[in-house]
């Protein structure tokens, strides 16, 4: 008995030693990991300020597919023709903007040196700026560089006086409609939301089409965009100008959400819109199953591509309607994408060259002319507007009223989450409109103060 005890002791001593060894080894490995990432951090911090005129190097560009396959590769090949010694590798990002951001945040906050340049949503500057996840471009580029963009875009890309994103292309909500169906039924293009609803019902009832109006009602960022359009034409706001007080339980917000819900209950929109994101809404419309579609600029090109669409040649584009009694047109939410630089990038000079080229007339013309994206550079916009071959959304864009999302706070994701989860609950009928907006209000208020 005693013998076993003592051997056990010896054994446990040995074990302690072995475990210590194991711990020490892992600590060493950890320390090694730690030091690499911290040295990366300091090297990028300590670099001198490049002006953006580098002509050689390798950069990685992180971008989600822009409307059509091939557009990113096309831009890269034109860029590499202009700068043969800079090699750009494309890293394809997720199309869902939330997933896209999550991956980026994880990579960049983890110290990854790639991607060097990333295409990010227009609503990211505050969050990325506040957490230093993007390089303040205004530290490197002169104010003359930012003067060429269309009004509002640069201020939207700024946070606390620094510009974080270089606008690549703009986007906004449009109303797509079936010219052929409206002509057959002798209906005008709707100018008010109520008119849109009643025309939808008429077209469905008379058997012209399966569904009236399809849009984005899923519980995600896109619903916040759609909601902003109804809310603004109802005269409401999400927050006060200082981002201190949420204003979501207002009569205007109730009017907006009640109307959105009525689209579903009346049958003007299919019940499934509460699960639709852009691709689903677009697919229903392009299959010829809906008379009206609220979508972004890129929906035009898709609807005119015979491989995806049964409605080629039958689609019209108009600004979004407004509520009866308000002046037409209504409000289109601003979307679009900017180019940002990873603060850990090893080659900020080449990154800047790439970003500058992407806002050149050549690149902006490719985006606008070939792919019907709305250019961000004012002179290119004007040139395109005067051309007869310009795609319809770009022409309609000149008449629209724009409304941005309340993205001036680093807590915008929580704020938007408060909006879309509760509005979606109201749309699906699991909460009354007023209860949903009360919940949205209190969650938005918590969000503004940095809560969960």
């Amino acid at each position, binding site marked *: 008995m005693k013998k*076993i005890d003592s*051997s056990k002791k010896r*054994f446990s001593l*040995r074990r302690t030693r*072995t*475990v210590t*060894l*194991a*711990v020490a*080894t*892992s600590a060493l*490995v*950890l320390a090694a990991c730690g030091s690499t*990432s*911290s040295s990366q*951090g300091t090297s990028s*911090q300590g670099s001198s300020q490049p002006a953006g005129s580098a002509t050689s190097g390798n950069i990685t560009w992180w971008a989600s597919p822009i409307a059509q396959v091939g557009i990113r590769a096309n831009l890269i090949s034109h860029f590499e023709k202009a700068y043969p010694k800079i090699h750009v590798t494309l890293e394809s990002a997720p199309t869902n903007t*939330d997933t896209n*951001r*999550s991956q980026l*945040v*994880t990579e*960049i*906050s983890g*110290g990854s040196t790639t991607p060097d340049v990333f295409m990010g949503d227009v609503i990211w500057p505050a*969050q990325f700026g506040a*957490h*230093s*996840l993007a390089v303040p471009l205004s530290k490197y580029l002169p104010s003359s560089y930012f003067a060429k963009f269309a009004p509002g875009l640069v201020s939207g890309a700024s946070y606390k006086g620094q510009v974080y994103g270089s606008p690549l292309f703009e986007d906004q909500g449009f109303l797509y409609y079936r010219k052929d169906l409206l002509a057959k039924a002798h209906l005008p293009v709707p100018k008010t939301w109520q008119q849109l609803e009643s025309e939808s019902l008429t077209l469905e009832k008379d058997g012209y089409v399966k*569904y009236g109006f399809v849009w984005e009602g*899923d*519980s*995600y960022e896109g619903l916040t965009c759609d909601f902003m359009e109804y809310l603004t034409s109802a005269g409401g706001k999400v927050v006060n100008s200082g981002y201190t007080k949420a204003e979501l339980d207002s009569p205007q917000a109730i009017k907006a959400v009640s109307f959105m819900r009525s689209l579903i209950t009346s049958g003007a929109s*299919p*019940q*499934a819109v*509460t*699960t*639709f994101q852009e691709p*689903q809404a677009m697919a*229903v419309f392009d299959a010829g199953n809906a008379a009206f579609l609220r979508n972004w600029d890129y929906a035009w090109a898709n609807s005119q591509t015979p491989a995806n669409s049964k409605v080629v040649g039958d689609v019209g584009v108009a600004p979004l309607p407004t509520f009866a009694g308000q002046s037409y047109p209504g409000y289109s939410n601003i979307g679009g994408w900017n180019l940002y630089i990873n*603060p*850990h990038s090893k080659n900020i000079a080449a990154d800047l060259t790439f970003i500058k080229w992407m806002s050149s007339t050549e690149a902006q013309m490719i985006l606008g002319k070939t792919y019907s994206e709305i250019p961000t550079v004012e002179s290119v916009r004007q040139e395109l507007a005067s051309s007869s071959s310009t795609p319809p959304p770009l022409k309609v864009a000149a008449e629209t009223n724009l409304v941005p999302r309340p993205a001036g706070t680093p*807590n915008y*994701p*929580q704020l938007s*989450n408060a909006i879309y*989860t*509760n509005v*979606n*609950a109201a*749309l*699906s*009928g*699991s909460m009354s409109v007023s209860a*949903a907006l009360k919940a949205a209000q209190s*969650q938005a208020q*918590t969000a503004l103060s940095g*809560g*969960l």
Partner: protein
Amino acid sequence: MAAVTGVDSVVKVMDKRGHRDVHSLRQARIGWMFSTPALVFIGLVTIFPIGFSVALSLSNVNVTGNGFALQGFTFSNYSQLIHSSTWRYALVFTVFYTVVTVAVEVVLGTMIALVLERLTKARGMMMALLLLPWSIITVISAELWQYIYEGTYGVLQAIFQSIGLGAPVFLGSPTSAIISMMVADIWKTTPFVAVIVIAGLVMLPSDVYEAASCDGASNWTIFWKITLPLLRPTIAIAVLFRVLQAFGVFDLPFVLTGGGPGTATTSLAILSYKVMFQNIDYGPGAAVAVSATLLVILGCLLFLRVFKTQVGREEVQ
């Protein structure tokens, strides 16, 4: 795993000879030597992240371009949770989801196992077919279910319509979305339970059954009085595995509903993901994750306690 085997072999040697000789000591040393790389690896990929999560959840975390900065100890992340109706809902939903899916899976899985065990022909083929859902990666099977549930061209909606049940949008209302998600989960993981239970069934001693049939017990009595009690340790293990998995459910709601409609299918894991990676709030996000872990460990310990007598008795036999 390797470490455990090393210790086991040492214990066995001791049992057999009653004392330790130089040979077994050397073996032990070699065992530990071989296990060290595995231990280091486990330490790196499991223990360090868990420890780091706990540290994050108890700190004021500031995210910068250069990584996390832990700025001081705080309980505020946890108090934020307790005051958040979103977290409370996610907790209730996750517990409810776990209880329902695991209960259904255990009953169904046991039934399937009982049938399979009696199959004389094509048992191997049936097993392979049965394992198909389990072997498909959840994200992919969730995408398939998404097609089935889709609200405008979904297969299930078409079936409902053709038999005159209207055109329900399965993922469009909270109750039906939760049920749809549970069905997808049960479809996928019932085979897992069935396989574990079959393993248990095969190991049951045949003499007890012979005795029972000699005594004239009916099949029904045999099932309730012999098979099920003897199977309890096996079922306990299946339940344990399933609870641990179901409590962390992420991929199904992520693909099917994104946590919606509203927040109806937001599990603790989805909430944790949203708070951490969308809001970039690592402190509260880690607190959600740690709270979920603590709760599931607590639940499993309680569960094991309830089943302990059974498991213990089985071991004596």
